């Protein structure tokens, strides 16, 4: 069988890259009115072929757990997802939102949207290198069509999803010294791989976020 596989990795400790990006966006580019949160992941997406979903999951998990090119158990949390074959790892993506979102969300007009934006290098041979590395170590499973990069989960206020998605482009693409931050369009590109409207769960009176307070209906784009 063939299945789409995703590997998401983030630091267990405070991520200074996302902290610096947050500070730069809010303090230097003055985007604090709209931004509500920022999380930073390393990401690999690929097609995998194996006898069944469980085999694909366990085999890829065996390799990425042991290979520091993908994860380091001392400092990373990860989630490996096989479409139709379950998932493994200690990272819970569906609840991985900054803790201050809910309180602010209570008083927002419009809505709060979370976009997972994959930033990749254009014309790079890094992805080919990762694919070779995986295929050399996997037994009875092979991978193809691998995409590697970093995902920025940008949480943003907007009147509707379209407006918020438009704003995301302005935040991500560095057009000038005063516009955009997260990629340089002359060697990087990006795509929104999923979007979520964050909604307070009805049966949670405290409206907590990052634990049980948000019901993020994740929509693949």
């Amino acid at each position, binding site marked *: 069988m063939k299945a789409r596989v995703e590997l998401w990795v983030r630091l267990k400790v405070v991520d200074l*890259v996302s902290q*610096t990006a947050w500070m730069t966006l809010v303090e*230097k580019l003055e985007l604090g009115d709209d931004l509500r949160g920022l999380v930073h992941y390393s990401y690999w997406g690929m097609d995998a072929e194996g006898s069944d979903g469980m085999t694909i999951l366990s085999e890829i998990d065996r390799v990425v757990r042991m290979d520091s090119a993908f994860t380091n158990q001392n400092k990373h949390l990860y989630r490996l997802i096989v479409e139709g074959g379950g998932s493994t790892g200690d990272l819970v993506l569906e609840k991985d939102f900054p803790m201050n979102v809910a309180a602010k969300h209570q008083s927002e007009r419009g809505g709060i949207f979370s976009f997972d934006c994959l930033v990749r290098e*254009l014309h790079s041979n890094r992805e080919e290198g990762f694919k070779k590395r995986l295929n050399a170590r996997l037994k009875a499973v092979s991978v193809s069509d691998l995409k590697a990069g970093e995902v920025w989960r940008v949480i943003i206020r907007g009147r509707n999803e379209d407006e918020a998605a438009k704003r995301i482009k302005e935040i991500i693409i560095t057009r000038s*010294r005063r516009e955009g*931050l997260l990629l*340089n369009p*002359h*060697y990087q590109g990006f795509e929104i791989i999923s979007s979520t409207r964050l909604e307070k769960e009805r049966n949670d009176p405290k409206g907590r976020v990052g634990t049980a307070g948000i019901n993020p209906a994740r929509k693949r784009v």
Partner: protein
Amino acid sequence: MADTFKDTVAIIQFPGVNCEYETAAAVRSVGLDADLFRWNENPELLEECMAVILPGGFSYQDRIRAGVVAAKDRIMDKVSELARKGRPVLGICNGAQVLVESGLIPGIHWERVDLALAPNVMMDREGYYCNWVFLRNEDSRCIWTTAFGTGEIIPIPVAHAEGRFVTEDMDILEEMKQNGQIALRYCSSRGEVDDLFPLNPNGSLENMAGVCNPEGNVLAMMPHPERASWLRQVPEDLLGSWGRKRWRAAGDVSKMEMEGPGRRFFAAVLSREGVK
């Protein structure tokens, strides 16, 4: 910081730079004063300086992308303003990355980001690359290279992981060429420009090693002239006349203290009259 520093070159110290002291020493070696200027000092103090240098190393640990966070700093408002008035500005390595991410280079559309310094592309390896390379001084408008003859070959060290000048906008590249903005190209020890590694150590488009703005007062260069400012810094086995000169000087302390091939980048500032 001195109260007034009309003969002073300001060397900007972003968090994480590590070449500021060598750069200051190289500036002083041509008879100028050099002051280290912290990124969070009052930027208006830069007004009196005769030139600004953004040295190499790292800025903000190169988080997100090399040079991009520093490019958004308040001090870069002032550097941009001075550059626009014609003040000489030199970015070396990480400083070059800051200038590119600021849109001061190529500067055809002021502060618009039209270039990138992308990760190196090299044969059979990736990441950081550190070695001596050769540059060919091109016929350009750059004031920082006026002490070199057109076509002169300059041996110099590079040390970077993201030094590949690229653009997705081929019209910009064409305009840069027409404007004479490609100041320095990677070449062989005999001056032949070849795109192959290691002559082109990072896969830069057009073998670009240094790019200036259309007016010529701002230069972003990936190699380190401050690491080639004394003869003692030149390797004995380097191909070409500088290597031979260094070999002959071995054991003679006074000769070893003579100028190296990179010092004239700094001397160029001294020879410029009428700094605005």
